[in-house]
Structures are given as structure tokens and as C-alpha cells.
């Protein structure tokens, strides 16, 4: 393992990025049986190259593959784990839908889910470190219909065993920075205790940098578990809530970091560089710079691509301005294979 020093306030993304229009068209044709599977795969690869290039141009330090192969963060995993069934799309807000899966039989790990994605991303990335995202067991359980297991808890622990196998496969493949997406974690206060145990079960024995992304919920419900959760970073959404609740950052233990959400992914208004810089200066009054990563609130995929890119550019520009004000401060160190 080598040690890689990142710039102070490293910029990254949460995961998803708008699919190029031509990819959406190829997916449509593939669904209609008019494009072969191998051509679809090629299109996915090309799309990853394109969105990695967008991130490079915007100046993002740690890119992802934009989750170009994933329609949605739960259904992608459910499609690749035995025991799920899909009845149809369910609305999440406005006119955004996902195919909410139903658990109709015993769950079984069928083999690697995102390892190939990671492998391809690493090959085409401009950066020695990339972010891989994986949906956590509690969120998959909470965002599925449970028709089979006797309780959601039992279902979540079963999923934890499966996700653990996937995380270990990623580690073996050389991943150095994995983000567990658990937006559902604060949803049910009476379940948080066992939900945290299930998530930790999924992370058991995984020795790479682990972040956790949570959004659009009450972070204070999770704060008592920040210490206990086996991750070293919490990537949280703040722009959507007008940078309120910043006090939550103080609850993050000193040996853990904050991924600071500075871009509202549900608004097409492109933030000004100055407002993002102002938000960064605010959080710097609470946490030392070495413990802060900079990212959008959440995945950018619901935005038009040109707006998503402009928002990333603003994020990077604002970060560079604030970095300039932090002369001599070193960034965090990451272990990379």
C-alpha cells in the first residue's frame, strides 16, 4: 500500500451523474430489443469515459463512474441478488420514480455486483484514487417490499452478509475508497439501533477507506452512532437545507471526516462560487480543514448534464478559493494499493 496525499479540502462526487443523451437512447433501443447486449455494454463503457472526462474538466479530485450502468441505487443491487422481484415503478418525489423491488424468496449472493464497474473506472480515471459507491443493507431493506422474511431486521442482516461479500470482493480488486449509501438510516428512530448493527455487519473485516452517505433526513438520530459506525467519513447533504444543521459536524468524532454537501442536486439553479465558498468558510469554523471533503449534496443524475457539470465547476472553483486562504495546510492522506 502507498500513501497518497490529497489536496486540502479534496473535492469529490456522491456517485451518480446524468447519463449522456445518446446512452439513454441506446438503453431505450436495447429495451426494445433493437440493440445487442454487447453494444449496450460498449455504450456504458463509453459513457463512463465521458462522465469521467466531465469530472476531470471540472477539476474534481476524486471521480466516480457516475453510476452510468445503474438505473437506480436499490434496484441495481436487487436485480443482481437472488430473491427479488419487481412489480413496477414507484414515485419517490415529484415525477422521479424507481422500480422498488419486493423480496419474495430467500436472498442469495450470485457473484460480484460492482467489481467490474470499479475495475473499468480505475482503468479510465485520471486520478489514482476513485470512489466506488455501494448501497447499504439497511437502505436496500427499507426501500424494498418485504414479502418473505419475518421482519425487516432479519432481511437487513441477510443483506448485510451479502454486501459484506461484495465489499471484500472490491477490496480484493484494489478499491481504496468505498462509500456506503445509507440514506434510509435515520428514517425510523426505533430501528436505528439494529440498523447500525446491520450496517456494521456489512463492513466487518473490510480494510479500505469507508465513507457513508446519508441525505434528506434527521442526522441527529444517527449522531449518537457516529462513533460506533465502522466508517471514517460521513458525506451529508447541507445545501438543500440552506446550510442549517451545521452543528451536526461537531458530533462527528475527531478521528472521522465530513463530506460536506455544498451543491443542491434538486435545483437547476447553478450556485454562485461565492455562496459555495461562504458555506465552506462556515464549516471551517466548526471543523479543521484536514477533516473536510467537499461534495454535492447527493447524486447529480436528475439534473441536465450541462447543469451538473457547471455545478461541479462551481464547487471546485469555490474550493480552490478557500484552499488559497488555507496556505500551508496539508490535505488528508489516503492509502492506495
Amino acid at each position, binding site marked *: 500500500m502507498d500513501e497518497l496525499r490529497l489536496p486540502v479540502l479534496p473535492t469529490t462526487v456522491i456517485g451518480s451523474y446524468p447519463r449522456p443523451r445518446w446512452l439513454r437512447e441506446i438503453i431505450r433501443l436495447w429495451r426494445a430489443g433493437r440493440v445487442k447486449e454487447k453494444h449496450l455494454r460498449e455504450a456504458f463503457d463509453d459513457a463512463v469515459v465521458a462522465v469521467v472526462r466531465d469530472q476531470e474538466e471540472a477539476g474534481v479530485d476524486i471521480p466516480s463512474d457516475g453510476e452510468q450502468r445503474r438505473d437506480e441505487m436499490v434496484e441495481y443491487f436487487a436485480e443482481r441478488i437472488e430473491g427479488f422481484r419487481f412489480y413496477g*415503478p*414507484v*414515485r419517490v*418525489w415529484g*415525477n422521479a*420514480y424507481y422500480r422498488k423491488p419486493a423480496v419474495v424468496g430467500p436472498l442469495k449472493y450470485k457473484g460480484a455486483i460492482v467489481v467490474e464497474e470499479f475495475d473499468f473506472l480505475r482503468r479510465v480515471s485520471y486520478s489514482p484514487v476513485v470512489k466506488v459507491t455501494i448501497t447499504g443493507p439497511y437502505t436496500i431493506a427499507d426501500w424494498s*417490499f418485504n414479502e418473505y422474511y419475518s421482519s425487516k431486521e432479519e432481511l437487513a442482516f441477510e443483506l448485510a452478509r451479502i454486501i459484506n461479500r461484495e465489499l471484500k470482493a472490491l477490496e480484493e480488486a484494489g478499491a481504496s475508497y468505498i462509500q456506503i449509501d445509507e440514506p434510509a438510516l435515520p*428514517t425510523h428512530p426505533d430501528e436505528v439501533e439494529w440498523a447500525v448493527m446491520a450496517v456494521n455487519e456489512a463492513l466487518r473485516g473490510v480494510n479500505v477507506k469507508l465513507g457513508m452517505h446519508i441525505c434528506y433526513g434527521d442526522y441527529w438520530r444517527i449522531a449518537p452512532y457516529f462513533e460506533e459506525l465502522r466508517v471514517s467519513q460521513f458525506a451529508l447533504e447541507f445545501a438543500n437545507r440552506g446550510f442549517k444543521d451545521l452543528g451536526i459536524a461537531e458530533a462527528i468524532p475527531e478521528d472521522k471526516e465530513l463530506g460536506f454537501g455544498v451543491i443542491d442536486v*434538486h435545483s437547476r439553479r447553478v450556485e454562485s462560487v461565492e455562496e459555495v465558498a461562504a458555506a465552506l468558510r462556515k464549516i471551517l469554523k466548526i471543523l479543521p480543514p484536514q477533516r473536510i471533503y467537499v461534495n454535492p449534496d447527493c447524486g447529480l443524475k436528475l439534473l441536465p448534464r450541462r447543469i451538473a457539470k457547471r455545478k461541479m465547476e462551481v464547487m471546485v472553483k469555490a474550493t480552490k478559493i478557500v484552499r488559497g486562504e488555507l496556505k500551508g495546510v496539508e490535505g488528508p492522506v489516503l492509502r492506495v494499493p
Partner: protein
Amino acid sequence: MRIEAALVGGLPRPYRIGRLMSKYRDGKVDEETYMSRLRKELVKALRRVERYGVTIVVNSMFLWDDLFQPFAEAFEGVERGGLYRFLDNNFYYRVPIIKGPIRHRPASLSHFKLVKGLVEEAGLNLSIKAVIPGPYTFTLMSENRFYNSARELALELAEALGKEARLLGEAGAEFVEVHEPLLTLQGVQVDLFKHAYERLSSKVSAGLWLQTYFGPLEHVLEELEGLRIDVLGVDAVEAPKQLEGILGFDAGWGLAIGAVDSRNTRVERVGELRRLVQMAAERFDRVFLTPNSMMDFIPVQVAFRKLRVLGMAVRGVVGGG
């Protein structure tokens, strides 16, 4: 004796309608095309609901993005803000932001008239219930940047919602369904709820259907006595144990039993639902069998499968359907 199957809150918005709405909002579809397709889909859904034996529908149908949307858009002093989780669902609403004095402007009346017109044109035997958020839940799920206290806001919202409910009644709504899911949480601010509800109910002549969901109501049941409630909607899926207590509590209201799970795809058994209706019919003159909340959380086809079961359960009971 009145026993009927009814909708609560709304139906899931079909994916194709979601896409149509997005295009319309982006200016990619003109109003005429949009309305024509919307009307067609609404009629299709209304016909299907009627065929399954559900006799009371709602004006919201699948038209609203969330429970607060029409009101937050129409009322003066209110704007729609960022997304926030709707209770404990993977479903998000835009938080109403209170920025100035609230003034009533008709919010959901056009939806009521639209659905009523379609029901009449199609010659369907359906009664239309009007849906509004309750002032207590509205207050606590909003961001108050203007009023000095939650009480002040709740009373102003009650005033505006009461005016809306009166208009809906005048337009022909037999019931106005007032959503107060926050009554099922622990630590209810009973006085706040009661004052706001009384203010709202004083303005309405239509029947008031107080709808609660996702938890038990027992802890505030006695507090509801004396309020103008024509039908009380309770969740018998997530709080089944409360039914016994509620069945034994005679406050003169009708009972809406939310016995079909609007958050799970497993379809209920007709026999079990029928037993519940029979049990309630021994104590209440008016019994309505309903989903336990709005059905936005499940796929459309599953929602209709559940509605068919709902209708079948009611048809099998003497006096029902």
C-alpha cells in the same frame, strides 16, 4: 347502515403520467395535449375503481406531487422549499415555507371540479371526497419564517384550510378528508391540534373525515371526543391492536378502517378484511374500508389489485357495496 369501500389520500401516479407532467412543466407539451391525456387517464382510473366496488374516490387522485403541493402553491405567504422525507417513507415532499401572512386562495377546488366533471360525464356511480392537509400536521411539517409561534401559524393555516374546505363542500364534496398523520406520534401537542381543528371545522358544512395513519391513535382518542368528526380514519395495518379500543369507543362518528397496506406489495385476503368490516359494523352505523394511507408508496398495478380486494370484502358484507 352504511358500509362502503373508499380511497384515502390518492392513487399512485402512473409512470407515463409522471413523464407527461414533467414534459408539460418543462414546456415540451402544450396544455391541450396535457389535459386531454390527463383526463383520459383519470377516467380510466375512475372506471377501474368503480368496477372494483370502491364507491368513494378523492379529488387528489394522482394529481398532487405531495399532500401540501396545491396549498403551498396557492396560498399567499407560503412557498415550496427543499425536499424532505415524508414521515418515515422513501417518499419526499417539498417543505412549505411560511414567508408572510397566509391568505387563502383556492388551491384544490379545480381538481375537485375536474374529477367531478369526469365522473358525471362518464356516468359513474362514485362519490368524491376532497382531501386537505390538517392544520396541525401542516404546521409541524412546514418551516415557519414568519409567525411568532406554532399556534399562530396553525390558526392561520386552519383559517385558510377551512375556507378551502367550505368551497369544496359547496362544490359538492360529501366529505372533506383532513390528514393529520402526526396525531399518531407520541408527544402530540393536543391543545395546538384541537384549537386549529376547531377553527377549521367551524367553517365547513361538508362532512369531516379525520384521517390518521402509520401508527396508533389510542393515546389521543379521548381528546377527539367533542370535536366535529363525522368519520374517523384509523390505521389497522400498522397499529392493529388499537382497533379493539376504538371499536369500544362510541363518540358517534363513522369509522374508516385502514386495513389494506399501502406500503407493502403483499395483497390482503378478502376473508380477513371482511371479518374486520363485520366486527366494526356491529358497533358503528357507518363503516368504510380503506387503504391505511395514500397509495403513492406501491406500484400502480399492485394498488389496483388491493382495491379489488377492498371492494370484494365490502360486497360480501350485508349492507355493503
